[in-house]
């Protein structure tokens, strides 16, 4: 058993932060928060505070990354040293490299990169405060930043995780549940078609538990999608 593990995660149907098992943490999204970036978004999702910026389409450096038939989409996920309790050493570690990779692959299916050959579209995700679920927070923010930059896309991409604590399937793990729980399943989708663009999992789930957690995470994505749309409508109007 790890140090600091709580005895129970769910007491009288409530989680340790007071939520129901299928309840998201409070989520606030603001589009267009940075002056210099072509597009940006700020998210507060529970205790996560994340800012994403999009630059491009712009010239590709280094040149060998250039593709003659499409734009290259590049994603950089980075945690601020002060974003976690034990100071994180600055710079990319193995975890953030992997998250950068899956973030790109979560967004690539919707970005119409073929419209901008020989260019780069760069997305920077900065985790200022982390309370678990930062890759989902980052993808959700990046998608709004891309829209704010006016990059043509088939859809927004919302992301949300489900997991298992005390043998129960719960939505949107926060840090205690993530650290000591028994499974974490982050998912991102294209809401109109229900197609899945991000799927990762660690922990232990029986077949039926996986199916329930997967469906719950997808439902969470649809709730996140509403917030993404609201943020864009708030900045640009429309939406009727």
């Amino acid at each position, binding site marked *: 058993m*790890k*140090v*600091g593990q709580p005895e129970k995660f769910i007491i009288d149907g409530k989680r340790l932060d007071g939520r129901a098992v299928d309840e998201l943490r409070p989520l606030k999204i603001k589009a267009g928060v940075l002056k210099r970036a072509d597009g940006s978004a700020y998210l507060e999702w529970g205790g996560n505070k994340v800012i994403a910026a999009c630059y491009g389409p712009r010239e590709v450096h280094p040149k060998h990354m250039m593709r003659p038939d499409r734009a290259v989409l590049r994603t950089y996920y980075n945690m601020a040293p002060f974003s976690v309790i034990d100071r994180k050493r600055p710079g990319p570690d*193995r*975890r953030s*490299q*992997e998250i*950068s*990779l*899956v973030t790109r*692959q979560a967004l*690539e*299916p919707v970005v119409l990169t073929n419209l901008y050959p020989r260019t780069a579209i760069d997305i920077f995700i900065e985790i200022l405060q982390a309370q678990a679920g930062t890759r989902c927070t980052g993808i959700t923010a990046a998608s709004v930043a891309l829209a704010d930059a006016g990059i043509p896309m088939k859809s927004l991409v919302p992301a949300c995780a489900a997991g298992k604590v005390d043998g129960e399937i719960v939505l949107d793990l926060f840090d205690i549940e993530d650290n000591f729980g028994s499974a974490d*399943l982050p998912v991102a989708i*294209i809401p109109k*078609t*229900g*197609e*899945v*663009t*991000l*799927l*990762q*999992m*660690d*922990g*232990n*789930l*029986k*077949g039926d538990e*996986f*199916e329930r957690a*997967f*469906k719950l995470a*997808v439902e969470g994505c649809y709730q996140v999608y509403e917030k993404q749309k609201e943020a864009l409508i708030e900045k640009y109007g429309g939406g009727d």
Partner: protein
Amino acid sequence: MEDIISEVERDYIASLIAEGKRIDGRGFDEYRPIEIETGIYQKADGSAKVTMGNTLVAAGVKLIVGEPYSDTPSSGVLTTSAELIPLAAPTFEKGPPSQEAIEVARVIDRVIRESGAVDFDALCITEKEAVWIAFLDLHILDYDGNLFDCGTLAAIAALLNTQMPKYEDEMVIYEEKTGPLPVRDKPMETTFVKIGKGIVLDPNLNEEQVLDARLTIGTNQDGDICAMQKGGPGTFTQEEILELVNKSKEKAKELRKLL
């Protein structure tokens, strides 16, 4: 590490799959021939070499004694690394590990860790002071696709082959062994790729080059899901994912029999 592939070849592979065929003649749910050798590198505490078709992965386990992490003071440590060395493919470059190499190592590490395959508590020597630290290094020697499944198989074979060195008077005596590394599960990973509308198991390099989306599913010997990783620029439908999860358990059983 992007290989250039011509549009003609891309169309050919995709149109074959649309007809229910694969470029190397396999069935959609069929692994390439697999061979496993263990205990081949004597300086390692455990080792294995696995071929899956033309993909060749060598795995070695080295044990040292060190301090435990402060949040798990009575647990041993496992560190998994993968190197995509330039020897294995013209597109691999020297230098620090690429994102792809990191992903391979982390996804293989994930299924070993989350399945509880290694009994970390049994690797404690003195709480808070000394535990066994196992380094699992995967060396890709020939890259013809599907490093996840081949690498996991090599990793588990090497862990099962590992003998614990003797630890006495704060010294590790590598020449003397005290018994096998405590391994209590044989987790496996199975990787599927979607090309057009078809989904095939165990992609070879050509298929990986043209894939739309990739899904790796790790299961333990009870069939529980312990790790997953979607990759590639495309998507899966929710139905496809649920179907692949079921299929994965059966395929993992086949792999486990080879150990």
